[in-house]
């Protein structure tokens, strides 16, 4: 799938997507990213520093949002700008079900000269926003 700039208009919404995150996913991301902070895989240490349990890397929740946008655009190299605040923790339980994050997005701006569209992303876990002011700028053909 590949979207075209001329087919996009402000206000358009991307179909939402649920992503399930388990402890195994966190360990895989830790290895891939090199972020081995103990709070992302060790319950004992996480709770000892006052966290509700093992929590997902903020960067993992951001990366999954980037993946959501790339998939929509049909070209991972098309994301020219991507930024977010980390507003809420995502505790990941030690079970098969894991934690579910729901990603959605809306076109908030288009730039004819640059052939870019600006998307505002929402990532919800348990009704709370995981990412704040999450904005991606994507260049489209």
């Amino acid at each position, binding site marked *: 799938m590949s979207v075209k700039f001329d087919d996009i208009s402000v206000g358009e919404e991307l179909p939402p997507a649920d*992503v399930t995150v388990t402890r195994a*996913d966190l360990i*895989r*991301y830790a*290895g*891939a*990213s*090199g*972020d081995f902070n103990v709070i992302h895989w060790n319950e004992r240490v996480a709770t000892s*520093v006052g966290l509700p349990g093992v929590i997902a890397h*903020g*960067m*993992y929740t*951001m*990366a*999954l949002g*980037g*993946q959501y*946008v*790339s*998939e929509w655009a049909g*070209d*991972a*190299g098309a*994301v*020219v*700008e*991507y*930024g*977010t*605040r*980390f507003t809420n923790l995502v505790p990941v339980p030690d079970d098969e079900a894991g934690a579910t994050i729901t990603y959605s997005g809306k076109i908030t701006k288009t730039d004819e000269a640059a052939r870019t569209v600006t998307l505002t992303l929402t990532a919800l876990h348990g009704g709370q926003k995981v990412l704040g002011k999450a904005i*991606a700028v994507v260049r489209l053909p």
Partner: protein
Amino acid sequence: MGVNPEIVGKIYTDAPVYEVGREKIREFAQAIRSTDPVHTDPEAARALGYPDVVAPPTFAIVIAQRCEGLVMTDPDAGIDYSRLVHGEQRFTHHRPIVAGDRLTSVAHVDDARLMAGNGRVITRVEITDAAGEPVTTAVSMVLIRAEEA
């Protein structure tokens, strides 16, 4: 103490060159659940006009965080690494990162201050390729939580 505000403006140039490998991109793409062949198949990437497999949009964090580590572990900064919380992250891609890139990164401390006992540091990592051309600008904001009274 959260952070020493005097590190504002300091520049860190000691990060080793990062060589982007196909297998590292594949590993990262799998971790974020991508099945797009642009991350794994050089032919698929070339068909889209890229010289080799393309890194996902947040892959630059692998390179940026190594460079930022120089700031966070600088004795002058006075940062307690265990109290660090990632507050914000932004990437500006001047071009996509592809396998085969040899990337140099330089960290700039754009802001460092104390706010109600917490430290707040804004670091900008400028990533450039072997020709010195800009590839990615990665800006992070971290908080260093105050110690409990």
